């Protein structure tokens, strides 16, 4: 649905061939596209206006560098300013108070407070060895307290026992007292979801805050939120001294404009992002990643992180050693394919890549998807050990056997072998020339394994 902003800006600047400083007319033209991109990404209108005005000021008169197009130049200005506005890279928690440090979680219904509370406790335990006590103050949503109790059990975190009939403030006080007496470092208070315009409930959460004096007060918000993000953020901030924002459902395919809206109107740092349903799916916030995403440019930083997290380092070293010797075989290719599947398959990877729209369509047209990875793996697994080590022995009848054994066709087997041949040629080059050779041969190496080269050109 969305074309990358870079493409659109380049189109807007196509007629513009002259170089030198960016004129006001150039900038105005380019920023119209930026405005569209930001609005499509759900950045609130008032924030978009401020943003565009600020970028305009920076851009007019800026020198266009020789090596880039004016479109790219504006993208860089926009991206840098966006990163700057989204704030510092990693904002640490301020928990250095007399224990127990209280963390208060607040937000609208369905924003993900309860899940985030459990994830946060687990993160604090793993990263800081903090002993956390979880407590649910949600006396309203049916089974909300049970939900936190179950999550606590799954995460191995203690949860304050449920006492029926207690109100939120009484539970908060009991949690604080229990944590103090039993020597917990941190107590996380999960509150009921509430509308920012619900006076009665906003009073209640303010009273909880006053009674427990939290070290951190986190506003939990859905990354898919639209224009209303500013109202929510502004009104929570007006009633509660919010110290940070947690954005959930970043693993969806929303563009995340709410991040900029909320940061801009509250001035509060985005401290964490929720990236999945598992209890360890809570990560530090990186402005550069979200900035690229808001602009529709994909999230390279996250891709790299994901690769780092899932790639087995020992395995990578072993592979590198084999590559040095020029001895890359089909077993290695199989491992590469498995690695890709582990990183979330094609869909998962594509979602993080820039310029996705176009490539995705091409891939779909070329029928490159996860089932293709699975079929390629099946082909390799249908070979004997000897064949995998030395594919040269694969004559016509062996290929026929492999095709029927893996439920594929001879054409598919041939395609895989050709692809393997190209890869191993490149690997040999790298073995001979080291990294420099690798870079020279990049068009082939730039593609991850599993991509048919014809399908992308």
């Amino acid at each position, binding site marked *: 649905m969305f074309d990358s902003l870079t493409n659109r800006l380049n189109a807007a600047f196509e007629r513009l061939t002259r170089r030198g400083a960016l004129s006001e007319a150039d900038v105005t033209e380019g920023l119209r596209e930026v405005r569209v991109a930001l609005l499509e990404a759900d950045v609130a209108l008032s924030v978009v206006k401020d943003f565009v005005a600020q970028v305009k000021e920076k851009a007019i008169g800026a020198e266009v560098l020789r090596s880039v197009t004016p479109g790219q130049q504006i993208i860089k200005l926009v991206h840098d300013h966006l990163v700057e506005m989204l704030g510092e890279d990693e904002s640490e928690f301020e928990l250095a108070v007399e224990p127990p440090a209280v963390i208060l979680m607040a937000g609208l219904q369905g924003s993900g407070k309860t899940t985030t509370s459990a994830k946060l406790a687990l993160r604090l335990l793993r990263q800081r060895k903090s002993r956390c006590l979880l407590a649910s103050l949600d006396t309203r949503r049916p089974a909300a307290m049970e*939900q936190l109790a179950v999550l606590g059990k799954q995460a191995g975190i203690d949860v304050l026992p449920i006492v029926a009939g207690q109100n939120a403030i009484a539970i908060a006080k009991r949690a604080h007292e229990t944590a103090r007496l039993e020597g917990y470092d941190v107590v996380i208070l999960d509150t009921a979801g509430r509308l920012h315009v619900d006076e009665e409930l906003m009073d209640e959460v303010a009273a909880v805050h006053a009674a427990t004096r939290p070290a951190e007060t986190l506003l939990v918000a859905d990354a898919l939120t639209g224009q209303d993000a500013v109202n929510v953020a502004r009104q929570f901030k007006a009633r509660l001294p919010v110290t940070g924002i947690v954005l959930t459902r970043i693993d969806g395919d929303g563009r995340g404009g709410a991040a900029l809206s909320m940061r801009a109107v509250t001035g509060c740092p985005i401290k964490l992002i929720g990236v999945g349903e598992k209890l360890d799916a809570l990560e530090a916030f990186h402005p550069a990643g979200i900035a690229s995403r808001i602009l529709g440019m994909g999230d390279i930083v996250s891709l790299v992180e994901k690769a780092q997290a899932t790639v087995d380092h020992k395995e990578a070293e072993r592979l590198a050693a084999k590559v040095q010797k020029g001895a890359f075989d089909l077993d290695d290719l199989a491992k590469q394919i498995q690695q890709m599947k582990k990183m979330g398959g094609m869909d998962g990877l594509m979602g993080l890549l820039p310029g996705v729209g176009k490539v995705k369509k091409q891939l779909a047209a070329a029928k490159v998807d996860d089932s293709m990875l699975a079929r390629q793996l099946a082909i390799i697994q249908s070979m004997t050990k000897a064949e995998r080590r030395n594919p040269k022995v694969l004559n016509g009848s062996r290929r026929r056997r492999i095709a029927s054994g893996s439920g594929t066709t001879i054409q598919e087997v041939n395609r895989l072998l050709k692809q393997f041949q190209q890869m191993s040629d490149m690997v040999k080059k790298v073995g001979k020339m080291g990294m420099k050779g690798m870079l020279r041969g990049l068009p082939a190496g730039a593609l991850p394994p599993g991509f048919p080269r014809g399908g992308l050109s």
Partner: protein
Amino acid sequence: MSQSAEKAGRKSGFFARLKAGLAKTAQGLSDSIGAIITGRTLDRAMLDQLEEALISADLGLATAEELVEALAKQKLGREVSDEEVRGALAGEIARILLPVARPLALDPANKPHVILVAGVNGTGKTTTIGKLAHQMRAEGRSVMLVAGDTFRAAAVEQLKIWGQRADCAVIARAETGADAAGLAFDAFAEAKAKGTEVLIIDTAGRLQNKAHLMDELKKIDRVLKKLDPSAPHTRLLVLDATTGQNAHNQVEVFKEAVKIDGLVMTKLDGTAKGGVVVALAKRFGLPIVAIGVGEAIDDLRPFEAEAFSRALLGLS
């Protein structure tokens, strides 16, 4: 929701409740439009401002532009009043929404009529099911609920409580991570045997870009057909009114997976304007069968195009 609030809610009529639910929404939008139009010649600058007001209501850039262009054709350069501009815009929006304002239709030939409820996490599926069940029970139908969210902690307990409130049976399995499709199948068979009139299946929240979770939803849809090729008879997608333009992707992908028959828009009692439904109506034409305007059991309302559009623009 406290007892007294629930009672107070029940006393007021439909129109008052819808208006109350949309009051804050309307306030914001009508304030901004009121500020823009002050009884003078409608010019480009004013049109731009009108467009911005619509964008702020989550109508989306393209829809906002189209609506404003339509207005420009009629009234550019003319002397206009505040009331007139709002009326014209509301009329345009109502024209778009009218074809999709269709309540949930139950076919009594289906025994039971199977309703599959899907959506992204946290949009309000379980709450909506509780309210739907209550409505149908009030109409004298027998209803059975299926706790198909076997993933989220305590989701089963949550639905059971709604089952108690609405006075209907809830079919569930004890262990988390149980096969939702198998459960739905068994419940369908049980409802058939008992002659239950309506079977409502809750499902786990899922982000539409997670292929394996969408496959799981397809599987639920598929196994129900083994007992009745026409089931599920109604597949509802629950959308959160605070969601912005991502609602487009949600509808598109869920629709592709299980052929959505209708939308429910929840959380319209906040300041979120839910304007994205206008764009969705144009693009997909899916019926909006109900809207959620609060946490109480009777806070589910039919979607009425005229009332929604007029309330959205602060007109009565």
